[in-house]
């Protein structure tokens, strides 16, 4: 048997205080799509950075072999020379440049000192055509969608004669349609002999595209499965080291409790406070009526005539295609986006007319954003700094001084109850894995003591174990009487965790569904604007 195209033997990579890779072994055969699965923090990203030359040779122990010969990369260029191209979640594309310029970035064809634009555009056009992409080479990349950008990256890698294409979470931000297009392209490339390492949290995709699957757990390779032997439960079992029986453990919240249990629950609360908290079907904590919002004053309307009510103890799901306006709606309610043209928002019985993030938080409306690294965390600061950032008022004593011990105790409470996996609350947030970063974002929102929690894609890019913990947290919140708005692009998750779902279509309500009416086809039809056809 010929030696594998790429082989990794006993890889160990240590960072100060953390062992990222304990012992990783795997083989990549020529012409296969090899999936890497594992929870966040299992070591996938570290492994890719070693293969891509980002962590140079000498900073790790163990061997990387290409065609059976040991190699040591000292930088990304070395790895590319060996034929390994890594495409990460953060694109290496320049938005202001055209498709052709991006494809030939840093290696534009030249005539003398000048760039040979004609040749560049001709070659780019040919590549795009070969790839079946209906794009003009002159189009600025900034105008393209995420799915198309992904494909441009792949085109670029292929033109560099890459033998191994490493795709890190390529579908994390793609719509189902775009995912299908991407997978088709990968199948075609495989038929042409390209080898691919495919990393994804979406196990159904993995099963659809991969030939073999290697599971990583806690920095070690656990097993390699052939796709015909693999099932989702089996992969998950290897990933978490135990069996998970229920993927979406939604338990009914407060509003669904029987009256007798309801009276037993808030026994300590009497009088006015208890009256406003008491959930009943005719009293909403948040009601939105005929809301119209534009991007800014004088700009076109983005959200059209949106109305809904949210009751205590309820999970209201929002679904829709990308660009349907889900994130915009949440950001607007929170006070971070848009210019309200009309309609009203009533929060806990009072108008919420000119919201600001600070004002919303004080009134009990919080948002955990979809983009943790950009909108959620101060990555350079400690976990504790981030956890208490929205709640500092609570710890401020006379003279404006923060009561540091009180703050530390409260941070520790959230650190422990959310089960953040880190040495302690003084660990920097930027060093955490995605799932743990998400827990810190949630902890920051929850520490403010909210009554309405808006979660925008709370499980994007996090592993199965952490997802379950997020779901349990949603259950806990609703059981305590908080109301949750859940935005998710994954229909199974939306259907599994919501009590009610509203599908948005191009900035308007496309359909509203009670739990009994949840069906994937109906929801999708509503998302595409065919609510009544379904």
């Amino acid at each position, binding site marked *: 048997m010929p030696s594998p195209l790429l082989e990794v033997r006993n890889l160990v990579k240590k960072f100060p205080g953390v062992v990222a890779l304990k012992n990783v072994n795997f083989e990549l055969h020529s012409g296969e799509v090899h999936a890497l699965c594992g929870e966040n923090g299992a070591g996938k990203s570290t492994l890719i950075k070693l293969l891509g030359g980002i962590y140079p040779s000498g900073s790790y122990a163990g061997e990387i072999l290409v065609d059976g010969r040991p190699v040591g990369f000292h930088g990304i260029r070395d790895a590319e020379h060996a034929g390994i191209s890594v495409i990460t979640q953060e694109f290496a594309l320049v938005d202001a440049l055209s498709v052709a310029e991006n494809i030939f970035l840093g290696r534009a064809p030249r005539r003398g000192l000048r760039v040979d634009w004609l040749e560049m555009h001709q070659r780019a056009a040919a590549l795009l055509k070969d790839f079946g992409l209906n794009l003009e080479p002159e189009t600025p990349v900034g105008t393209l969608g995420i799915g198309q950008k992904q494909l441009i990256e792949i085109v670029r890698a292929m033109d560099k004669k890459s033998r191994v294409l490493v795709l890190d979470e390529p579908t994390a931000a793609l719509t189902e349609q775009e995912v299908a297009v991407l997978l088709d392209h990968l199948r075609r490339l495989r038929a042409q002999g390209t080898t691919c390492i495919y990393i994804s949290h979406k196990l159904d995709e993995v099963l659809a595209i991969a030939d073999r699957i290697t599971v990583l757990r806690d920095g070690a390779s656990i097993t390699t499965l052939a796709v015909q032997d693999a099932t989702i439960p089996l992969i998950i079992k290897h990933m978490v080291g135990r069996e998970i029986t229920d993927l979406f453990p939604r338990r009914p919240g407060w509003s669904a409790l029987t009256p007798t249990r309801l009276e037993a629950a808030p026994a300590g609360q009497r009088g006015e406070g208890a009256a406003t908290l008491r959930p009943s079907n005719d009293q909403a904590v948040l009601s939105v009526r005929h809301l119209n919002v534009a991007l800014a004053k004088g700009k076109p309307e983005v959200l059209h005539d949106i109305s809904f009510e949210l009751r205590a103890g309820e999970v209201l799901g929002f679904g829709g295609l990308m660009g349907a306006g889900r994130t915009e709606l949440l950001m607007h309610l*929170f006070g*971070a986006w848009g210019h309200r043209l009309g309609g009203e928002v009533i929060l806990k019985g009072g108008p919420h007319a000119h919201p*600001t*993030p*600070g004002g*919303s*938080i*004080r009134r009990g409306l919080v*948002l955990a*954003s979809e983009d943790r690294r*950009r*909108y*959620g*965390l*101060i*990555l*350079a*600061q400690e976990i504790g*700094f981030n956890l208490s*950032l*929205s709640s*500092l*008022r609570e710890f*401020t004593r006379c003279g*404006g*001084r*923060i*009561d*540091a*011990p*009180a703050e*530390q*105790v409260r941070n520790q409470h959230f650190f422990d109850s959310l089960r953040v996996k880190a040495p302690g609350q003084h660990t920097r947030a930027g060093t955490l894995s995605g799932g743990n970063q998400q827990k810190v974002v949630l902890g*920051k929102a929850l520490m*403010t003591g909210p009554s309405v929690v808006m979660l925008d894609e709370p499980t994007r890019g996090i592993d199965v174990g952490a997802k379950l913990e997020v779901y349990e947290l949603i259950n806990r919140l609703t059981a305590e009487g908080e109301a949750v708005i859940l935005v998710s692009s994954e229909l199974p998750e939306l259907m599994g965790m919501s009590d009610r779902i509203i599908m948005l279509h191009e900035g308007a309500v496309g359909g509203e569904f009670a739990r009994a009416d949840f069906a994937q086809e109906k929801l999708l039809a509503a998302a595409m604007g065919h609510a009544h056809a379904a």
Partner: protein
Amino acid sequence: MNVRTLLKTFSMPLALAGIWLFFIWKLDHDALLGDGHGGYGRLIFLSPRNLTQLIVQFSIIGTLALGMFMILLTGQIDLSAGSGVGLIGGITSVLIIQQHWSAPLAMLAAFAGGLALWSLMGTLIVKERIPSFIITLGGMLIFRGFFWMVIQNATIPVKGLSDNLFSLITTYYLPANAGFVLAGVVAGALALLQWRGRAARSAHGLPVPPAGRTWLRLALIVGAIFFMVDRFNRFNGLPATFLILSATAAGVYFLTRHTPFGRYLYAIGGNEEAAVLSGINVDRVLIGVYVLMGATVAVTGFMQTAYQGSSSTTVGDLMELDAIAACVIGGTALKGGRGTVWGVLFGTLIMTSLLNGMDLMAVEPEKRMIARGIVLVLAVWLDMRLSRP
């Protein structure tokens, strides 16, 4: 601890020690070791007079650097500080000498002017979204122009026939006994803070650091304070400028370490978008930090002008760059979110030691400029080099 972290921790103290040893060797060699013919010269660099001089320069630049530090923490910048220093000092001199205002009133008016100008710049930066680099670059030119108009390109002395509050800022020294009393009060306050901090931690059930270590550290700090006061007393006593710097440093330390405002500075510099979504009123914090900068500029303006004895067109020239350099040498990140008060004071000490020593050695101004530039670049390069993963 590996070599890299050791170097990173001690690179600044080593640099400072290097600079000091160099000047001591160059200037005080004869006084300490003799000239080889049995004669001993007089101390120059280490003389009480020069050390006092050094501390006065340190205090003036340090005060401005502390204001700049808070601006840099948020990821903003202020290039107008040096011109502001000149302008505020000029306004004060003109009001006192030409308009015959009383010194406290004139200083109050100039101080209010500083707050007004900086809150205007802060508002323009925040509300109109004009980059701070541009606004303060404009401010640098405009304030310099106003300054020259105010003093009519002349030299206005800071005092008439007798001393006033303005001129006394850099000529007043605390009497020896008062110095020791003040040191005692500070020591008592530090002890009280330590004790309260420990009590608060144990009240919340948090681990308390070993008592011995806390009190030993405190004893060392208090010892150092008394030693310093004693040194100053051998010349003229504690300079008033040093008291101003100490108060400013204590204030900025409290703000940045112990208040929500300070947290917000780090948060905004670390990730402004996340700060907004965390409910921080970023606009208000940024305007606030510019107003504080206006206050430190005004105070520095009083000190720098009084130190030079008169207001003339060159007062405050390039001081904003000295302040920025001091912050950066002390480990403050220009892109925001990182830095400490201690680092800034350390950076300032390195900067001023260099300037002071070169003054004593009568280094030509052109070479002085080059040396300042090299030190700045070296410090930043070293910092980046050592913090690379």
